[in-house]
C-alpha cells in the first residue's frame, strides 16, 4: 500500500503515506472515524500524543536544536490557551519563552524584526480570528521583506502559529478560517496540518523553512486527535500534498480538521454508491501541490473541494480555477466546492453552516451522476 510518488526523503527519514488502517467503511455520523496515520519511517520510539502535545513536542525539538529559536505570544508562558507551549518556559527559560502584551500588530512586527536579525521566532496569535490586527504587518512587512529589499533582508525564519476553525460553539470571533487571505499574498507560505504526526513534522519544517510561514492549527482537534507520534526529529516537506486514500472515480480535496469530515463522506460514498474515491490532504495551502492534484484529477475526472471558510474567494476557488486550466478535457463534471456559506461564522447555526460529511456526500453523489 505504499505510494511510490509520495515517498519523501527528509532528514534521512522516509515519510510515506500509509493507508491500510482505513477501518470501518460504513460511514455515517455515529461511526467513529479511523483516520489513517502517516507512517514515518525509521522514526524510532513513539508516544501517544494529541495534537497540542505533538505541536508542543515539535517546538520543544526546535528549541533544543536551535538555540536562536524563541517562542512568544499572549499567555504562552503559562502554556497558552490551548496548552501548546506548556512546559517550554521551564525548560528553556523566560528569555526564550515569554508572554507578550495584548497587541497582535506589535507581536507580528516584533517577530519580523527579530527574524530579520537571524533569530527563529515562533510567534503565537491566540486565535486566527485575532490575526487581523496583525494583518498589515504580515501582508505588507513579512511577505514583502525579501522582495522590497532586493534580497538584502528577509524574515524567512519567522513562523506564526494560530488556532483556526470551527470548535462547536466559538461564534463569530473564535471560529474563522482565514487561510485564503494569506494564501493570496505572495511571499507567505501557509500550512495547515490534519493529524498530530503531520502537525509535528510540518511544524518543524515550517520553523526551519527559509520563508515566513503562517501555520494554522485545527483547534477542534487539539485534544480529540490522538496518534502514536514519533518522539524524534522529523520533517514533512512543505508544498507536498498527501494522498490519504487512493481511488479512481473522484478526487476529494481538503485540509486541516476537514479531512476527517471528508474521510467520513468518502466512506459513506464508497459504501452507498459503490465508487472509489481518492482523498487528498493539501497540507500546504500556499504553495500548494498542483501536480499531485492534477495527476489525481486526470485519473478521476471528478472533483469535490471542501473547506470551512466561506465559498466566495475561498481557497477552493483557486484550486478549481487551476484544475480547469490544467485538466479541462479530463473533467466529467463541474468541480464542486463544499464550503461555509457566505456569511459571518455563526454561533447558533454552526451545525448548519459547516460543510459536514452529509453535504459532502451529497456533492459527491451529484458529481458522480452529472
Amino acid at each position, binding site marked *: 500500500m505504499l505510494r511510490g510518488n509520495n515517498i519523501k526523503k527528509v532528514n534521512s527519514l522516509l515519510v510515506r503515506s500509509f493507508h491500510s488502517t482505513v477501518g470501518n467503511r460504513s460511514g455515517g455520523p455515529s461511526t467513529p472515524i479511523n483516520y489513517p496515520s502517516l507512517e514515518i519511517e525509521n522514526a524510532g520510539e513513539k508516544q501517544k500524543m494529541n495534537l497540542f502535545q505533538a505541536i508542543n513536542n515539535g517546538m520543544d525539538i526546535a528549541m533544543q536544536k536551535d538555540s536562536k529559536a524563541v517562542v512568544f505570544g*499572549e*499567555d504562552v508562558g*503559562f502554556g497558552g*490557551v490551548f496548552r501548546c507551549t506548556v512546559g517550554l518556559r521551564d525548560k528553556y527559560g523566560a528569555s526564550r519563552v515569554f*508572554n507578550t*502584551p*495584548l*497587541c497582535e*500588530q*506589535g507581536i507580528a512586527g516584533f517577530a519580523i524584526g527579530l527574524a530579520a536579525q537571524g533569530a527563529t521566532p515562533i510567534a503565537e496569535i491566540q486565535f486566527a*480570528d*485575532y490575526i*487581523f*490586527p496583525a494583518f498589515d504587518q504580515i501582508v505588507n512587512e513579512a511577505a514583502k521583506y525579501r522582495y522590497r529589499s532586493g534580497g538584502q533582508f528577509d524574515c524567512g525564519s519567522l513562523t506564526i502559529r494560530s488556532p483556526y476553525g470551527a470548535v*462547536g*460553539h*466559538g*461564534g*463569530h*470571533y*473564535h471560529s474563522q478560517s482565514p487561510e485564503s487571505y494569506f494564501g493570496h499574498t505572495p511571499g507567505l507560505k501557509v500550512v495547515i496540518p490534519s493529524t498530530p504526526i503531520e502537525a509535528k513534522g510540518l511544524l518543524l519544517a515550517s520553523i526551519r523553512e527559509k520563508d515566513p510561514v503562517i501555520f494554522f492549527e485545527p483547534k477542534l482537534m487539539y485534544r480529540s486527535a490522538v496518534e502514536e507520534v514519533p518522539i524524534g526529529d522529523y520533517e514533512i516537506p512543505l508544498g507536498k500534498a498527501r494522498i490519504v486514500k487512493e481511488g479512481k472515480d473522484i478526487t476529494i480535496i481538503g485540509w486541516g480538521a476537514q479531512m476527517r469530515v471528508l474521510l467520513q463522506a468518502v466512506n459513506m460514498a464508497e459504501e452507498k454508491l459503490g465508487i472509489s474515491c481518492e482523498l487528498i490532504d493539501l497540507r500546504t495551502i500556499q504553495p500548494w501541490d498542483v501536480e499531485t492534484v492534477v495527476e489525481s484529477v486526470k485519473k478521476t475526472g471528478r472533483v469535490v473541494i471542501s473547506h470551512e471558510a*466561506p*465559498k*466566495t474567494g475561498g481557497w477552493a476557488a483557486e484550486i478549481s480555477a487551476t484544475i480547469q486550466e490544467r485538466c479541462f478535457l479530463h473533467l466529467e463534471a*463541474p468541480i*464542486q*466546492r*463544499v*464550503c*461555509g*456559506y*457566505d*456569511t*459571518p461564522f*455563526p*454561533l*447558533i*447555526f454552526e451545525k*448548519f*453552516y459547516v*460543510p459536514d460529511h452529509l*453535504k459532502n456526500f*451529497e*456533492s459527491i453523489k*451529484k458529481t458522480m451522476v452529472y
Partner: protein
Amino acid sequence: MLSNFLKVNSKALGHIRTFASKSGEIKHNFKKADTYLCDGPSDSTVTNKDELISFFTEMSRFRRLETVCDGLYKKKLIRGFCHLYTGQEAVCAGLESAITKDDHIITAYRDHTYMLSRGATPEEIFAELLMKETGCSKGKGGSMHMFTKNFYGGNGIVGAQCPLGAGIAFAQKYNKTGNVCLAMYGDGAANQGQLFEAFNMASLWKLPVIFICENNKYGMGTSQKRSTAGHDFYTRGHYVAGLKVDGMDVFAVKEAGKYAAEWCRAGNGPIILEMDTYRYVGHSMSDPGITYRTREEVNHVRQTRDPIENIRQIILDNKIATEDQLAAIEETVRDEMEKASEKAIAAPLPQARELFTNVYLQEVPVRGVEFVNSFKP
C-alpha cells in the same frame, strides 16, 4: 427596562421609606482620585436613602444576572464564550449614574451588565446568551455581542471598540447633541495600538469621549504588572487628562464620571478614567481564575473592597434599612432574574433563515454548498 427596575426598587423600598424617614443627607468619603492634567473631583459626596437603596438594588441585579449566567453555563444551556463582570459592578453602576441615557457607551466582551444598566431587560440578555430569537441580537452572537439603545456592544476584538468610541463622540460634537461617549477597555486592551490612535484623534479634534480603563489587574492570565510598562493607565494618554479612581466604590466612580462628563461637555476633549477594580471570577467560563493569582488575593478583595458589601455597610451604619429589608431586596432581585431566565429558556430558537439575514442591508442570495443555487433568506 427602567420602569421594571423602579418596580423592583420601590417594591422593596415599601417598608424602608417609613423606616428611614428621619435620615436626610449622608456624607460619604472615598479615596481621592489621582489626577493627571486636571484637578479631579473632590473626595467626598453627599448621598441619600433613595440613592443608596438604588445603588444597592442595581448592583445586586448586576451580580445576580451574572450568577444566573454562571448557572446556565454550567447547565450547558449557554454555549460558547462567556465573560462575567462579578466584582466590577461599581464601575458600571457609578458611571451610569453619572451620565444620562442619551449619552453613549461602548465596551468589550464583558458586556452583560452594561446592557442591564442601559435599560435592556434581563430576559433579552439571557435570551441572547441562550441563542434565542428573543435575544437582543436575535440570538446570533451570544455573550460578547450585545447591543441596545445607545449601547454599541459588546465587542470581541480586544481594543477595537476604542476608536469606534471616538467616532461616536465625533458625531456628538458635530451634531451638537451635548452628549458624551464612554469607551470602555481593559488593562490588557490598554496595550493595543488602536487605543493610542484613538487618544490622538480624540485630542486633536477635542472629542467628547471618556476613555475608561477597567483595570481589573489581569488580561486573561497575564497580570498588568507583566504586560504593561508603567502601570498608570490614567497617564498613558500623555496629552490626555486622566483620573485614577477607586473603582470598587460606586460613589468615587460616580463623582469621577460626573467630573469627566462635565469636562467633555465643556469642550475640553477626551479624558481617561482608570478604574481600580477587580474581577472575582475567571477571565471566562473555562478559566478557574486561580492559576495565575492566589485564592487569598481574590478573597482579600472580596472581603475588604466588595462594592455591594460596602453599600450594605453604609446603609446599615446609617440605619437606612435593616438587614431583613436588604434581604428582601435581594429576594426580589433573585426573583426578577429567575423569572427572566425561565422566560428566556422557554423562548424559541431563531429561524434558520436568520443565518442569511443582516449580512448586507439587502437580503442578497447567499452562496453555499448547493450545486447551482444560492440560499435566499
